[in-house]
């Protein structure tokens, strides 16, 4: 099976659920989580998503790279906010509790609290994204996208990309080696300039072989009537079970809770400083 995004058969209830239900659950939880700045709600959401990931039996090694990548961006994001808008927290919460520093570089409790909220947003959304990608068969994922209203041609583009990525990778390797034999040095021995010149030599043949491939694929698809009907069915589509309804109902309840908090707090913020 194509495991580019780490999909694997795992015997868990999250694997058994349909792509559509998981997609709806994911979209509901992340949307409300992105809107809300209620720290209590976000913490509960994070705990929930970490708990869900535990039950999905995904090993740390499988998502380690993705985690490091996201953490790296989260930290860069937070550092940039501190540098570019150090007083944003004060403006947001309307109070000013100075911790240290002065002038432009005054660090306040409000600012730290605001950035803490941002950090939790990463912490709850990453596990949810990992669960969705790692427990959903790519074709079923495409079916799920189509079910919630994405046109099937776009949804299928997702599946077909996964299908041909390994082929393009192998083309890339072959072309790269062939060009080295011709004399383009792209190993570590050569200077950066020479290496980038060598890399350019790979692009042209890669583009041409890929264009050839796309030509054949689109013919093969048309010859089997892709695009003929307004809708298409999906082999990997699964029948909705009680589990899926529970997932959707559960996430709607959580979403509803978040919306209720918007009214209770009189806005998106939860303000402990007042």
């Amino acid at each position: 099976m194509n495991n580019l995004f780490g999909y694997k058969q795992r015997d868990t209830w999250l694997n058994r659920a349909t792509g559509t239900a998981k997609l709806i659950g994911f979209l509901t939880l992340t949307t409300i989580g992105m809107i809300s700045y209620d720290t209590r709600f976000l913490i509960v959401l994070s705990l929930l998503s970490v708990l869900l990931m535990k039950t999905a039996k995904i090993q740390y090694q499988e998502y380690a790279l993705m985690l490091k990548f996201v953490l790296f961006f989260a930290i860069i994001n937070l550092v940039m906010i501190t540098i570019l808008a150090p007083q944003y927290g004060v403006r947001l919460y309307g109070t000013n509790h100075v911790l240290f520093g002065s002038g432009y570089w005054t660090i306040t409790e409000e600012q730290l609290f605001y950035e803490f909220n941002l950090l939790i947003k990463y912490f709850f959304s990453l596990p949810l994204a990992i669960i969705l990608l790692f427990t959903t068969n790519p074709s079923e994922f495409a079916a799920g996208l189509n079910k919630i209203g994405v046109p099937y041609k776009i949804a299928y583009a997702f599946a077909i990309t996964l299908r041909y990525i390994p082929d393009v990778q192998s083309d890339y390797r072959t072309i790269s080696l062939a060009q080295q034999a011709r004399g383009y040095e792209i190993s570590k021995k050569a200077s950066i300039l020479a290496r980038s010149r060598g890399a350019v030599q790979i692009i042209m043949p890669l583009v041409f072989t890929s264009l050839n491939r796309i030509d054949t694929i689109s013919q093969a698809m048309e010859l089997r009537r892709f695009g003929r009907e307004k809708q298409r069915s999906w082999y990997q589509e699964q029948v909705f079970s009680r589990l899926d309804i529970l997932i959707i109902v559960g996430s709607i309840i959580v979403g509803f809770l978040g919306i209720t908090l918007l009214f209770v707090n009189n806005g998106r913020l939860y303000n402990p400083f007042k």
Partner: protein
Amino acid sequence: MVAPLIDFQHVTFKYHAQAEATLHDISFQIYPGEKVLIAGASGSGKTTLLRLLNGLIPQAYAGDITGKLELNGKNIIDQTLFDLSLQAGTVLQDSDAQFVGLTVAEDVAFALENDHQPVDKIKSKVAKWASRFGLGERLDLAPQMLSGGQKQRTAMAGVLVDDGKLLLFDEPLASLDPAAGNVAMTMINRLQVERDLTVVIIEHRIEEVLRADVDRIIVMADGKIVANDTPTTIIQSGILPENGLDEPLFVQLLRKANVDVATLANVADVNSVDVQAYKQVIEDLKTPVIKQVKKNKKLVIKDLVFNYDDKHPIFNGLSTAIYQGEILGIVGKNGSGKTTLSHLLTGFLTPESGDILLDGQSLLSQSIKERADNIGYVLQNPNHMITKSTVYDEVASGLVLREVDAQEIETRTRKVLKLVDLDSMRHWPISALSFGQKKRLTIAAVLVLDPQVLILDEPTAGQDATHTSELLNFLKEINKTANTTIIIITHDMHLLANFVSRALVIVDGTLLADTTPSELLANATLVEAASLRTTSIYQLASRLNIDQPEMLNAAIVHHSTTI
């Protein structure tokens, strides 16, 4: 009188992108239940004809069509590609690129999904067709896990789920090894009988296709139909070689024995051709197999050990020698290590232990670039190699990178271009070249570095008999004049039988045999191990009780090299 399924009357077609018409005044009929072979050299228009049948023309390729084209009594031009696909299923040439599903099951289901059929109905149909093609256990596998033959069977199942009655095959043998090709032809044969299908096969490998009992051969050349008759009549008339196509090997042998092929009954079928009377003249053709006479070891491979991962060892102590000036063929089924070996020689891969010596010097410490100065490697797909926009620049680029002075670049490049017959086209954009010309161009780009050893991966893939013989003459020429050692990795039976002087059979990383091609092709056990197929000469010999059939193969070899 049964109505024809396909009826073409005076069809002429010109692509918008081209100045000349590709098809001229084509008229033919195909009747229900027939199996028809459309044969022709490249550029004969056979692919264009197929596109007219399945609707890719005019819907994917625009052009001007005149004449009458009917499928099932209805005008083809008035129907959409989708309507036509329900009547005529097409299996394309590239079994890998046409695999659109992420798994076997999804690929077989693709057409039904597009028809928006209920999923449970799709699943039962997929299960039925997959098991009929022996794919029942492989439904969840990705295309990367399948052999060429399995991919093609998936493509066939994916077309037959429509229950259409007409199947079109575009070069079904092109991406298969001979053994898998044989299985494919047998399967096409069986399907046709069981399901009362009409089958149209586009191919130029006559020997292989004739094993599938075709009813009729339509021979095309220069956009016209030059013959349309039963295989027997076509072969009796001797029209195939005149149009750039190879006759079956046993027919070549009969001609060599001066048997009057034109009057021979059942001459298209090696198993029923009436040849008992000619046993003696055939036996008289026996030619001793010439053994290797080269003495100087050029490349020595010593105890080579290589694995991609611990679970799948490829080479576990491979040792052999390749001699100066020989033409060596490396054969063996897919995935048994042929390409891996050439990658080890060129430095694309590094062995775990063992050594590779060129003229007694170890190559292991040299980089890919350094080795390329001595060992030239031509990949199977020319598009993987071409980086420049004009013919001259492409050939010169290797020299430019090696900082050879301008005057010398000019002389050497022109010399090689003349050798491959591309000098007059040296200012042409590469996009204007045919596949065969591109192939010659990539060989020239490698040859300009004056390699002492030339490795070619499937050099005849995608080329017809005329282009193949041009290419082989040219390789023979450089082998003779520059004493270049040539190593060819191939499945091509004709190439093996007619060109190679020594054959290494590599199966699962072991050197199974080191022999002459004539002996290899006459040895049923070896042929099976290498996923090759015995030739029709072997069958003819066994029917006539002629022993040592390799000596008949050798007769053909000498016949072909004198062309």
